[in-house]
């Protein structure tokens, strides 16, 4: 069975109250959600809190998922990210963070075992969005990525990018529209 279908099946079973299916769903997807939450929240403790909240919500809302909402994993990622944004908006830590990207690669080099089917599907999704990101201007791309991965608001983006608020809003909006149109072309 394809991974997408497997996840959808576990989600459907979770909606019926199947605890084993929920456990399998958690085991299969929590590393990806946790990685995203770590990236956004900058703290393992906060990321773990958010992850727990996200899966409580998934357990409660599994019956609202339908295939029309897209791939199960991206739906789960959205739930986790909303939770992270809530926590960020509640209180944003004000700690200066040095840039050490090379150490990150070392820290995160533990690879999960991947099934070929899911790897292929996800890589296709990634290839599509990466190709479309390449079509954005540098400012558009940076503002969209900062907003996605750090949960920055317009105002925070303006400060971070040292640009007027109106300009940043324009970068975001134009970038999103170009992204949408590009992804639509790729899927047609």
């Amino acid at each position, binding site marked *: 069975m394809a991974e997408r279908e497997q996840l959808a099946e576990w989600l459907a079973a979770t909606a019926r109250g199947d605890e084993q299916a929920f456990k399998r769903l958690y085991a299969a997807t929590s*590393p990806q959600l946790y*990685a995203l939450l770590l990236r956004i929240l900058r703290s393992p403790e906060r990321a773990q809190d958010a992850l727990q909240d996200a899966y409580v919500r998934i357990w409660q809302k599994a019956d609202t998922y339908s295939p029309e909402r897209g791939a199960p994993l991206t739906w789960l990622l959205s739930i986790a990210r909303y939770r992270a944004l809530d*926590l960020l908006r509640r209180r944003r830590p004000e700690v200066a963070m040095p840039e050490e990207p090379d150490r990150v690669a070392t820290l995160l080099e533990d*690879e999960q075992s991947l099934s070929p089917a899911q790897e292929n599907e996800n890589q296709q999704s990634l290839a599509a969005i990466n190709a479309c990101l390449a079509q954005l201007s540098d400012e558009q791309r940076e503002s969209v990525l900062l907003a996605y991965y750090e949960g920055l608001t317009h105002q925070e983006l303006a400060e971070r990018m040292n640009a007027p608020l109106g300009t940043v809003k324009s970068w975001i909006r134009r970038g999103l529209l170009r992204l949408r149109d590009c992804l639509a072309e790729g899927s047609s």
Partner: protein
Amino acid sequence: MTMPEHDELDLIAAEYVLGTLDPEEARAFQQRLVDDAAARTRLAAWEQRLARLGLDLEPVEPPAHVWEGVARHTGIARTESAVSSPAVAPAAAANDAPRVRRWRRLAMAASVAAVLLAGLAVYELPLWHEGATSAPSYASVIYDKPTGMSWLVTSTADGRKLSVEAMGDFNVPSGKMLRMWIKSANGKPELIGQLPHTRGHYTMPLSAKLRAQLGDHSEIMVSMEDTSRAGTTTPGGKLMWVAPVAHRTG
């Protein structure tokens, strides 16, 4: 130049998903979602588009206690406290284009590095987390099926505080309020207080009288009442939800 209505709606949905709308705009869009199918469709489409970015991260196995917390809060059996590493873990972006990686590094270097330093940073934990060291003794979930809104209501082990986790925003008309009641098996409803209807974590003290109502056969009731009824101690509005209270052993 004025943007076409469909593009404007699409952009609002996009920015809602991205998280860049200001709080008022976000709340307005949330309300629109309740009865606007087009808005819901656009929201789902943007969730799918942008969540692809979430796939572009190396998966990280969460600690076992996270699953234990999930099990505790959902009330499911904890026969397997530590869920083993999945056989079908989601894919990492193993073959991502190097230049895209560089963009992301530029964009995310600060936050990524912060993961390494998180143990050194002192962040204020969400208020609700204070109760995590003493397991809740009773729990109840209030669920509004039409909107998907839910509240997780738990009492601390000593029963002196009640914790409410509002898992979203619920539209309460102007001049109205949600009031929460506890009713034991043979008792009458006793007022706990107003039920918060915006996403967040809330705690309130539980009086000895209310603690006495809390038990295996008690129920949490929520009514929608006029705000003018504040100060009264008997239900007087529309009964919205009744949720059983379950004893927690974890």
